[in-house]
């Protein structure tokens, strides 16, 4: 079939325009449009736009679930030995698009997204699906609860498997959160850094990022000191964030100590572009620049250039991990994982993996496990196993869909797949 898809999209928006009326400042100020209250349930008048839209309802399509229902496997355990796919578990809800890895605690794997699901690690069945009210962007597991970060923070009790607390963390709550010192640290554009005590389940402090940078790495300037955090990690008694620069919060002093500029050609808008190592933070630009930021000197000490494609699409670099003395970075351009030795700070190996590796690998049981989305949206996602000793690919598993971040737990790799909304379990040995 051949027609100009862009023209038809244009037609759709022209139709939308005809159904809407402009909003005037006077109406906003008078309170005749916009919210009057969103917290006490006070109703608001129907806007003219809503009235027109209601008329359109008779011709609208109520879109149901995504038809990504092509089954993969039959879910039956394999009788083979060695690394293998043992289960493909239908989650039944969207596993999200920007979601971090699943978490595991108390004999179960937890997957977020539109809702949160608990999968028993032994029976490999979904035992609970729990509404949290938000789209979750990150999950954290503690001994007695799973904490769900979305537009707010929710606590799911492991015993009752119910939401016991919902904590408002402000507009612009980010998935860049960490657990340290008995607290969940959540970044929010509105409230800054929010400290939630895990025991009392209350916000006990809010910290605002300094307006002016206190240092600038290599004299790189901070253009706009804001706290739109996209990444965070706990390293050596400090929480590091990537906002408009690298931002350090000292856990001893309980204050922001450093706001550091990053190279101007570092695409810090990408959600996943930093790798935490013991002595450094590696900044990874999707266009192939990789910098090493030294945590002793707070300076950029090294810059590497990885090959990338000029073609738009999936051909860039997203992120990687630090493991076994090396940095491992998937590169969509040549469908490989680049191994950078942390001592020599040089690329030592380029290891071919699946098509379009776009998410972080994971280290487990002597291997690096690399997800790749294949020729998305065709159902060709894979996970590749790289032996850590031989640096050779030993297995490639078809998992289908768009594999997101894998997670290691209970002798297996657990991989959520977007599109078919499944969780694939790969036995590691």
């Amino acid at each position, binding site marked *: *079939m*051949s*027609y100009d*898809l*862009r*023209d*038809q*999209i*244009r*037609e*759709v*928006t022209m*139709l*939308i325009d005809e*159904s*809407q009326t*402009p*909003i*005037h*400042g006077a109406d*906003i*100020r008078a*309170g005749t*449009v*916009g*919210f009057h209250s*969103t917290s006490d349930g006070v109703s608001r008048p129907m*806007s003219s*736009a*809503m009235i027109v*839209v209601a008329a*359109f*309802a008779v*011709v*609208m*399509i*109520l*879109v149901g679930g*995504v038809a990504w229902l092509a089954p993969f496997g039959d879910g039956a355990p394999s009788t083979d030995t060695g690394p293998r796919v043992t289960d493909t578990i239908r989650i039944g*809800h969207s596993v999200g*698009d920007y979601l971090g890895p699943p978490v595991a605690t108390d004999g179960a794997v937890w997957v977020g997204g539109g*809702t949160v699901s608990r999968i028993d690690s032994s029976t490999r069945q979904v035992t609970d699906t729990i509404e949290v009210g*938000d789209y979750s962007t990150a999950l954290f597991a503690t001994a007695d609860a799973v904490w769900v970060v979305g*537009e707010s923070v929710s606590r799911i009790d492991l015993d009752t498997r119910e939401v016991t607390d919902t904590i408002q963390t402000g*507009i*612009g709550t980010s998935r860049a959160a960490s657990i340290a010192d008995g607290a969940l640290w959540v970044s929010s*554009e509105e409230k800054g850094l929010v400290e939630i005590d895990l025991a009392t389940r209350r916000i006990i402090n809010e910290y605002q990022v300094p307006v002016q940078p206190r240092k600038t790495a290599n004299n790189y300037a901070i253009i706009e000191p804001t706290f*739109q955090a996209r990444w965070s990690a706990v390293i050596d008694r400090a929480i590091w964030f990537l906002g408009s620069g690298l931002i350090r919060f000292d856990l001893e002093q309980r204050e922001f100590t450093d706001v550091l500029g990053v190279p101007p050609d570092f*695409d810090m*808008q*990408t959600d996943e572009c930093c790798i935490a190592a013991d002595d450094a933070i590696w900044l990874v630009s*999707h*266009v192939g620049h990789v910098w090493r930021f030294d945590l002793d000197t707070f300076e950029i000490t090294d810059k590497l250039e990885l090959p990338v494609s000029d073609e*738009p*699409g*999936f051909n*860039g670099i997203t992120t990687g991990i630090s493991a076994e003395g090396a940095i491992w970075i998937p590169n969509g351009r040549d469908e490989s994982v680049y191994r950078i030795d942390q001592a020599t700070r040089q690329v030592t190996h380029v290891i071919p993996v699946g098509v379009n590796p776009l998410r972080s690998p994971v280290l487990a049981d002597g291997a690096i496990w690399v997800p790749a989305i294949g020729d*998305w*949206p*065709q159902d060709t996602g894979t996970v590749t196993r790289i032996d850590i000793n031989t640096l050779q690919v030993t297995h490639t598993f078809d998992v289908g869909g768009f594999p997101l971040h894998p997670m290691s737990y209970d002798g297996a790799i657990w991989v959520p797949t977007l599109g078919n909304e499944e969780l694939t379990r790969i036995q590691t040995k």
Partner: protein
Amino acid sequence: MIPEQTIVDAFDTFVVGCEGRLRSALTATLGVEVGPDAAADALAHGWQNWDRVRSMDNPVGYLYKVGRDRGRKQLKRRDPFIPVVPEHRVPWIEPGLSPALATLAERQRTVVLLVHGYQWTLTEVAEALSVSKSSVQTHHDRGMKKLRRKLGVQE
């Protein structure tokens, strides 16, 4: 102290300049039911916090996030409504386009509708969404690829 009328005039001028862009972006993100109200909510928030908002480098980007966060609560777990183009509007209708748009990931749909529907440049989209142009390009490519696949349309 700034006279009250000056503040009012400044806000009204701001609304005239940005309201259309904000409403288009939020409609692309949240659909025709929720998007316009989310834009009104965001502008009301802007008025309530005008002292802070007017000094921002990218107030539209900020208000977009405010509206998006509020609108998502209304959307919950259903897809946004995208109207179907009536048959008389174009010589040949792709009936699956609106449903396909509704099932795109939020950012993909937003970028695809803003770029091809509202004819925004990558720079304009990047500024409104507070992301880089390369991120916009990536979301666009993924969205169009997914649309073509779902609709069986060739390049």
